[in-house]
């Protein structure tokens, strides 16, 4: 009888053992290194994928910049969205509305897979900022942080930009705004100038003199690019704080598959998660009541999960299945390598 029970339980125990080993391996991964290489993979894919004939379409929820005309494997959704919204109103609110809805639906399908993980792992401009941060560390310049009051104020900018990014093209379509203002966010987005540089395309490094409006917009774009370089050097993920794509993501994030979950009962409010957060999201440490802890500024980089010493206090889940969670063993393993870099 005993041997019979053992024969039945053995495969189950074996499966459980394999599962546990796999889970321990994932939870104890050298997360920073893993993320670094994953970011490089996506950077190469989104900046040079076009040379390999890859085409993901025009609705990507990340900065696969359309101005990188040769290397892009797809186009950031904000660009076609602005152009579509600038169509004359009778067209936009007529048959062409189907095109807009189709584009949005495609964007939505892409988005719900990774949620704001598109920012933390995939976005080429985010990766560039992380590289600049790495440079700052090597140089030995200390990083900067916003005060809480500054954080609260600046956090609204991305929503203002998102609103203007939609309203200005609509104004163009209605005839109230000059067409020289088309794709207004692209005109000031630093990705327009920076990402094509990696494909040896310097054409966007220019001031467009074809009209006074274009002069103003492209000069402003150059100004924002200058701010980007300095800001990213002294502040981690400087641009992500103002990015309207991030705001757009957050409006849809509640229905996405990929989520960041917090178990407040297991949180000791040690503050490790806050100290490693590039975006300085205070709630990640202070809020012990909200399970879905992902805030609007979050880029789901999962550095907080990797830095948490409490068993299961923070976890990343996909469609309800935990794929990475905080563990004491993983924390200790990472601490030995220096997780708070």
């Amino acid at each position, binding site marked *: 009888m005993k041997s019979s029970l053992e024969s039945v339980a053995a495969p189950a125990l074996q499966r459980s053992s394999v599962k546990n080993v796999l889970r321990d391996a994932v939870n104890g991964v050298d997360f920073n290194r893993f993320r670094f290489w994953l970011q490089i993979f996506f950077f190469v894919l989104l900046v040079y994928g076009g040379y390999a004939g890859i085409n993901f379409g025009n609705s990507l929820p990340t900065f696969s910049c359309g101005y990188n005309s040769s290397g892009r494997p797809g186009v950031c959704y904000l660009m076609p969205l602005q152009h579509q919204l600038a169509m004359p109103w009778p067209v936009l609110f007529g048959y062409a509305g189907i095109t807009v809805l189709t584009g949005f639906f495609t964007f939505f399908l892409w988005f719900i897979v990774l949620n704001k993980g598109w920012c933390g792992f995939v976005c080429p401009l985010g990766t560039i900022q992380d590289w600049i941060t790495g440079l700052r560390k090597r140089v030995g310049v*200390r*990083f*900067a*942080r*916003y*005060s809480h009051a*500054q954080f609260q104020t*600046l956090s609204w*900018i991305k929503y*203002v*930009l998102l609103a*203007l990014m939609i309203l*200005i093209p609509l104004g163009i379509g209605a005839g109230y*705004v*000059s*067409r*020289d*203002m088309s794709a*207004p*966010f692209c*005109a*000031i987005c630093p990705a327009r*100038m920076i990402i094509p540089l990696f494909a*040896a*395309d*310097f*054409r966007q*490094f*220019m*001031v*467009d*003199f*074809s*009209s*006074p*409006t274009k002069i*103003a*917009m*492209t*000069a*402003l*774009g*150059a*100004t*924002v*690019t*200058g*701010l980007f*370089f*300095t*800001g990213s*050097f*002294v*502040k981690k993920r400087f641009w992500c704080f*103002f990015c309207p794509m991030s705001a757009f993501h957050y409006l849809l994030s509640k229905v996405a598959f990929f989520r960041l979950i917090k178990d407040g009962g297991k949180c000791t409010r040690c503050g490790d998660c806050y100290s490693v957060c590039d975006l300085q999201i205070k709630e990640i440490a202070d809020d012990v009541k909200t399970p879905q802890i992902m805030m609007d500024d979050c880029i789901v980089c999962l550095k907080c999960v990797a830095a948490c010493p409490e068993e299961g206090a923070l976890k990343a889940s996909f469609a309800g299945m935990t794929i990475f969670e905080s563990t004491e063993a993983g924390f200790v393993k990472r601490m030995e390598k220096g997780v708070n870099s």
Partner: protein
Amino acid sequence: MKASDSLTAIGPLTILALLGAFATPVLARPAKAPTAPVARPAPAPSMAPRVDDKPAPSAVSAQLDAPPPWPEPLWLVDAPSAERGSGDRGSGERRGGKRGAENHEGQDHQNRESIGAGAPAASAPTGGVPAANAPTDATESVGMMNMGHGGVKNLVLRRGADPANAPVVKLGDDGVSLQVLSADGKRWETPFTDMGKGGLRTKVELENFGFYSAYLLRKSAHGGVLDVQVAQAELLKGGMGHGVEYDPALFKPTLDDTAPIELVREHGPDERLMTSIHSGDKAVFLVRAYGKPLAGARVSLSTQQGWRKTVTSDQNGRVEFTLIRDYFPAWSDFNRSQSSVFLVWAEAETPEAGVYNGQGYSTTRYQTSMTARYYPAPYDYRSQAYALAIVMFVTAFTAFAVWFYRQRRQKPFKEIVFDEKLA
């Protein structure tokens, strides 16, 4: 020192920049340069209808008596130098396609040359202009208006409305010569010689600084029409020093009051002997007949890329064109010294009757042409310098602002001595 708050210096700048992006006043769109050929204008009242207009079905029988079509313009251009035969791969590829083949179907391609930039590409197998063995004479200073300012010009005769594909031509009769007129009224002739490729060339030596007018006059009578064709060239000997850059008399175009039809490029108020024409500039021409403005003349301008526009001269014989961009290389191939040729020609018709070489005619058609070279607009390359300057300035300024802010917040170490006796 506390690390927080140190972005105060950059934070407001960011807010201003980002909000400023959308606070930019929406400015009215300025008048734009024409970017597409306009429809053929209606003929002026003083002019007879064009004979190459498509006839109405009811007028088919009348076609038997219709005058011959207008001849293709005959024009002069500076012989390409080795320098001008390089560069611009893009434009060469563009114009070497179907258009070139169609426009010159049935012509002897072996006798053609491409002019200026793009000649190497024009000889590509896909092109319609296979012969690219352009004569080069790099040992001499060549050029016309705005292309070289030397005193020796080598001019080649071509025929056709498409500057990129027009073949060189050899006129049937012997003893063809170019008439040259200087600003002081001096006239002389220089003979055309066989250039060995089915074409003619001539060499003009200019003695003094200033603008010269050169022309070749051709007449032919057929079908009751006398065609008077003039191939004009505005030649310039330019330079610096010797005080020539301050002598306004040298900056004026040379006019010929005896010419039956004349095309004069109006010089800008700031034009000097070393001035160049750029894309985006206004090119103004006067059409004159025997020294008087000719109204109602049809004036066309075409560029190497195939862009063409036709307008009618006003009461003062004046027409104006905006020179559109004609140079679209890859960024890495951009050459700000790259020149493009544009061709402008004027046509007018009068009911003058007479006999020429034993053939009677009841109509006289005048046609004159001129070419010039123009360069990329300075904005095409300066715009990148401006953007780079802005990015570098903002980066440096904000970096300095952050550094300065951090320096200000540093407090020197101050030891606090606690006096226990007072406590």
